[in-house]
């Protein structure tokens, strides 16, 4: 196997019409809506690193669940939620504490590896947890994602203004009567949910490029929060669907192409805006 095959697959339209692809496209849509909406707040609250860390805190939950014979998402979600509630309870400032967060992140990743080594099935699943496996998403998972999205949109619509106000300035929001502790915990808990549904697409390692990067690109393009959220969702969707189509055409893993597209769009937007500002 010295020869690296990187050839166009002429049968790609057939691949795309397979049932597993159907699920992957639907899951991609659900993930894009969730990631786009929450990505905006993640950046506004300066909690991007905390969001990244949540995925890693979820890792031992995921491999531990495999060890116990439980669903991966259940373990991942439980650990991410636990981490989210702790970070949320410590306050918005805590989510900016990079050293503490980074240390916990490293420890959790190590623990995830340890759990994975305890059983061969967990070991086999390790790669798909780390790097995603959007092509193996089941019908039940898609239904779960859709329910999560509906709940997410309802909750965000209800807490939208206070969440935005507390993201802009916590002290002013608190003085005006916004329950900032509740906002923190809610934000982090929803974040844990978004991470849990986004990990199957790109895995814990690449989650940043799916949750934060499209929102960052959207922030460059659109000025109002709502427009930025919609733009981020569209960019996220383009990345995921583009990744699925291109991975059917060429022999490359979808996660790689998803992350590449997301990064490219961000780089182009960044470049264009800095040229625009220089003029």
């Amino acid at each position, binding site marked *: 196997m010295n020869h690296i095959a990187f050839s166009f697959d002429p049968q790609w339209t057939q691949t795309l019409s397979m049932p597993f692809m159907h699920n992957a496209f639907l899951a991609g849509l659900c993930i894009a809506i969730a990631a786009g909406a929450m990505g905006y707040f993640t*950046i*506004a609250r*300066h909690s991007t690193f905390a969001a990244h860390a949540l995925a890693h805190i979820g890792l031992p939950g995921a491999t531990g669940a495999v060890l116990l014979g439980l669903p991966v998402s259940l373990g991942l979600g439980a650990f991410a939620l636990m981490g989210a509630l702790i970070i949320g309870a410590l306050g918005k400032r805590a989510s900016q504490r990079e050293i503490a967060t980074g240390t916990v992140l490293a420890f959790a990743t190590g623990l995830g590896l340890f759990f994975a080594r305890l059983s061969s099935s967990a070991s086999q699943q390790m790669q798909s947890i780390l790097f995603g496996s959007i092509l193996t998403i089941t019908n039940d998972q898609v239904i779960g994602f859709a329910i999560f999205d509906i709940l997410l949109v309802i909750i965000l*619509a*209800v*807490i*939208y*203004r*206070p969440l*935005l*106000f507390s993201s*802009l*300035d916590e*002290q*002013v*929001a*608190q*003085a*005006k*009567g*916004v329950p900032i502790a509740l906002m923190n915990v809610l934000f982090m808990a929803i974040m844990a949910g978004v991470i849990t549904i986004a990990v199957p697409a790109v895995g814990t390692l690449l989650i940043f490029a799916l949750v934060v990067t499209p929102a960052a690109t959207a*922030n460059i393009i659109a*000025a*109002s*929060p709502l427009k*930025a959220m919609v733009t981020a969702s569209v960019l996220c969707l383009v990345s995921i669907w583009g990744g699925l189509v291109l991975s059917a055409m060429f022999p490359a893993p979808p996660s790689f192409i998803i992350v590449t597209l997301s990064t490219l769009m961000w780089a182009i937007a960044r470049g264009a805006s800095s040229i625009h500002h220089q003029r």
Partner: protein
Amino acid sequence: MGTSIPARHHSAPPRQADDTAQPAIVFKDAAIRRGDHLIWSHGDFTIPQGSVTAIVGTNGAGKTTMLKAELGLLAIAHGSVTVLGEPAGKANQRIGYVPQSYTSDIDSNLTAEQSVLLGLTGTKFGFHITSRAQRQQAREAMDFVGVADKANYRLSQLSGGLRQRVAIAQALVSNPQLLMLDEPLANLDLASQRATVHVLARLNHELGMTIQIVAHDLNMLLPILTGAVYLLDGHPHYAAMNKVLDAELLTHLYGTTVQVVTTPQGDMFVTPTPDEPAGMNQDTHAPDEVARFHHHAGEQHRQ
């Protein structure tokens, strides 16, 4: 432009006489502690409505703490703090607050208008559409502070001075009776400082708003101040302006030599001397001596 006033002030009935007679802020033997550390105690003073008060003192004396106590964000360890006739924290809907950290948050992607609107709608849960009246109110607040032409700029695109004024507009949009600002002039260039002070002067003169300003440099604020709370030797004291502008007092207050100069125009300037002139004898006292000295000043004021 010069007479534009936030909307509700047009329609609001004139303030009742007893409302203005009621003091804005009353401290009664108030004390604040953080953990085991007593920040200040024996706060005993009354600040009238319609006043412009500076809160002055050295770093770490508890100036920001005082604002937070008045907003009810920090619990009082002893005594009572009454703001606009209610216990601290109960009248916050009638208070506009501009914290110090506000302008440093350059990342915000919100536009100036959206930021100001949050001052009106930011506490509302549930689904709401911003009404035309609310937009008009935001527009008038921005007009008042002179940033209406920047309504669609992102906060991250504005200079520190403009962001400061957007922050003031956000605090103003709900038509507060009392405006609290924490170091509003810090990190601003001279022109921006003057513009900010001018906005504060107009708020006080045209709308009769009571204003409290945490400051470490009084110079810029002197023309508009009616009094100051000075945090010295662990006790806050309130004094009318002529009493605060005492070189000896300010020297103790800042721990460095300060001179008060009366110019031919009648303006007074507080001038921290950069170097000790040769042969000048700086008047220093031990802390307990200073404490007695200022208790006297406070008692005279109360009589």
